[in-house]
């Protein structure tokens, strides 16, 4: 069933022709357009006006359907935000576990509805704070977690049966998950109530985030161990968050972000099926993570296209039967890369627009960046404004009261179709290379992103794209930057504290149990078994992050990226 009948379309066509030939030229003579051509942030050329003619063969039921029904373009739930708002999940963590415990409690107190842990770089690449490579890095970009002891402190006074926690962790995902589960065990929380997410998305590490440790094949194997074990043991856990965010931040366009993320997802689904798992057993636990950038409608269209594409992939490619297997459930973070140092308070407005796009795009969970993030991890003051931004959208603006309110907009529907079509082309290309694992090894998505990021920078410099305060309404007021109150903490003191604590942990644990757990882990790795039960036992035995990762590095080796640019 198409939206307009032929007769009506004919009349519109006639009218539009007349408008283009008669009305518009007169206006353009007096008021020429601001730009020679208008494009989205991803260089999709957009017209002046969209009409039913742009949706000529467009079928409502085929393209949209209803909320909670295939292909889920309008949202994965029939009730959407009328029943349950998105989870307000602020990516948080700095310093040691004590500082982070305080920050989590501060955000909970101000109405945050889910937790999300940001780890520092030593944790992200799986080394202990007293490793020489960690020197000067501990606690800066997130919390340092070196053992179960640190995780106990992070969750001191927080009931893990009542919160869900995202952990942005990749190669060491099995280790951090084991620490999390071990603390929950100590709190007496049963496995069926442990809820949250491990990012655990290895392919995008090579594509964009660059906290890789193991070579691609081993990295995927270990990540799939986490998924398989979680599906069987932690029914509420999202063991993977297939992430476009970092891909976009590294310079990809919206189309590339969408295509590469879904292609990563396709690779994981194949890997899991190859393990003998039934698609409907694991697919409902796959989750996604996207960026919300500054070009408003493009982002909304991207989110809607993503849902429709994933539903189709799961149903038609992989034969999923359960509705839940077809759901693209996703977390969104506003675009860190859109924030600038110049006139930093303007970043609040950027974040607001991006958060609004995420909500209009039907996100399940949202992090809003703080305006001070071009300089450092956020202060309490800045993080609270970011959280309040979500609350104002949720409770004041009214945008959450109607499901997919932009559905049916000629422009948004056209753009949704356009982004989808372009993304399929990329996916076809990646399929022809043998899937994303092979494409990554060939450096294909990496090069595409490099080209896109360089082009964007050239566009900025040549005045085809704008950033207020940077290349238009340029601000050189350094005092305005100087007056931003930044988070202050004594990094050196925290680094010393974390080094001291990890040494204490090593000295005070049951040495026999610890030693055996690492030996068992090594043997399991050599035999190619699922590592999770062994990592969990090592975690419970207070094996440190660096020790567990050290065993795995010895078995699987490490990845070194070719230095291309």
């Amino acid at each position, binding site marked *: 069933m198409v939206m307009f009948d032929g007769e009506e379309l004919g009349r519109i066509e006639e009218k539009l022709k007349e408008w283009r030939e008669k009305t518009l030229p007169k206006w353009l003579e007096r008021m020429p357009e601001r730009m020679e051509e208008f494009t989205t942030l991803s260089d999709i050329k957009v017209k002046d006006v969209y009409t039913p003619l742009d949706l000529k063969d467009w079928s409502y039921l085929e393209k949209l359907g209803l909320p909670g029904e295939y292909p889920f373009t309008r949202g994965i739930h029939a009730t959407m935000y009328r029943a349950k708002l998105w989870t307000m999940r602020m990516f948080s963590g700095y310093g040691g576990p004590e500082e982070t415990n305080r920050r989590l409690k501060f955000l909970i107190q101000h109405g945050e509805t889910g937790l999300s842990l940001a780890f520092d*770089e030593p944790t992200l690449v799986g080394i202990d704070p007293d490793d020489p490579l960690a020197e*000067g*890095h501990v606690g800066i970009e997130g919390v340092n977690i070196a053992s179960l002891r640190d995780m106990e402190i992070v969750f001191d006074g927080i009931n893990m049966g009542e919160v869900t926690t995202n952990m942005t962790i990749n190669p060491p995902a099995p280790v951090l998950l084991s620490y999390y589960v071990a603390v929950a065990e100590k709190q007496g929380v049963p496995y069926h109530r442990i809820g949250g997410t491990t990012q655990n998305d290895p392919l995008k590490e090579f594509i964009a985030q660059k906290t890789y440790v193991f070579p691609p094949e081993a990295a995927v194997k270990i990540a799939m161990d986490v998924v398989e074990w979680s599906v069987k043991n932690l029914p509420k856990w999202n063991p993977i968050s297939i992430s476009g965010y970092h891909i976009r931040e590294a310079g990809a366009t919206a189309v590339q972000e969408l295509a590469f993320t879904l292609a990563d997802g396709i690779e994981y689904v194949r890997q899991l099926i190859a393990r003998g798992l039934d698609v409907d057993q694991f697919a409902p636990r796959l989750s996604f993570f996207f960026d919300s950038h500054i070009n408003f409608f493009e982002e909304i269209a991207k989110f809607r296209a993503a849902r429709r594409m994933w539903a189709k992939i799961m149903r038609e490619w992989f034969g999923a039967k359960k509705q839940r297997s077809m759901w693209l459930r996703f977390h969104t973070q506003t675009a860190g890369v859109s924030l600038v140092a110049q006139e930093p308070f303007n970043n609040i407005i950027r974040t607001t627009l991006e958060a609004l796009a995420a909500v209009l795009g039907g996100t399940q969970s949202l992090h809003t960046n703080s305006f001070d993030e071009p300089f450092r991890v956020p202060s309490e003051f800045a993080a609270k404004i970011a959280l309040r931004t979500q609350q104002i959208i949720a409770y004041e603006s009214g945008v959450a009261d109607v499901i997919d309110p932009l559905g049916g907009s000629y422009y948004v529907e056209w753009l949704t179709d356009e982004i989808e079509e372009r993304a399929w082309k990329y996916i076809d290309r990646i399929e022809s290379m043998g899937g994303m694992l092979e494409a990554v090894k060939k450096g294909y998505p990496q090069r595409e992103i490099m080209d896109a990021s360089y082009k964007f920078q050239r566009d*900025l410099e040549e005045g085809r794209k704008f950033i207020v305060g940077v290349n238009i309404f340029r601000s050189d007021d350094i005092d305005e*930057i*100087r007056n931003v109150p930044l988070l202050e903490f004594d990094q050196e003191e925290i680094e010393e504290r974390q080094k001291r604590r990890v040494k204490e942990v090593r000295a005070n644990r049951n040495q026999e149990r610890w030693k055996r757990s690492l030996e068992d882990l090594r043997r399991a790795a050599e035999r190619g078994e699922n590592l999770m039960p062994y990592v969990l036992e090592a975690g419970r035995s207070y094996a440190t992050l660096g020790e567990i990762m050290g065993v795995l590095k010895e078995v699987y080796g490490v990845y*070194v990226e*070719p230095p*291309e*640019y």
Partner: protein
Amino acid sequence: MSSLQSTEAVGGAVRRFKVLVAKMGLDGHDRGAKVVARALRDAGFEVIYTGLRQTPEQVALAAVQEDVDVIGVSILNGAHIHLMKRLMTKLKDLGADDIPVVLGGTIPVPDLEPLYRLGIREIFLPGTSLAEIIEKVRKLAEEKRSREEAVTGVGGC
């Protein structure tokens, strides 16, 4: 084809300015480094990119071995004071502190002064244009070459 603006005639031959673009420590944010490396290359510089996770000491050594005119470091992980201190110390130890060092990244304003005191010649905050980076790097490279000519007596014209 190199742009003449980024080269200098040495004894009739043309030697392009050589820049080492470096990432140090555990910082994986490589978008800026790669964009700048490409822009410098397109402007006619010879560019060597270190790749990720280099120690400051490795970067200093590479700069000396490759005989570069400028070192450009990109840091977006907050560890800039620590990493730059080590880099500058190692350059001094190697007797290579005549190589000008520039830095780009997410640097809080209060850290600018201590970094300049370490001897860093230029610091580029987010939002700096490629044109500005290219111009300043070129100027530093020219200065270094003319200092060398003054010492060795080798030079054009």
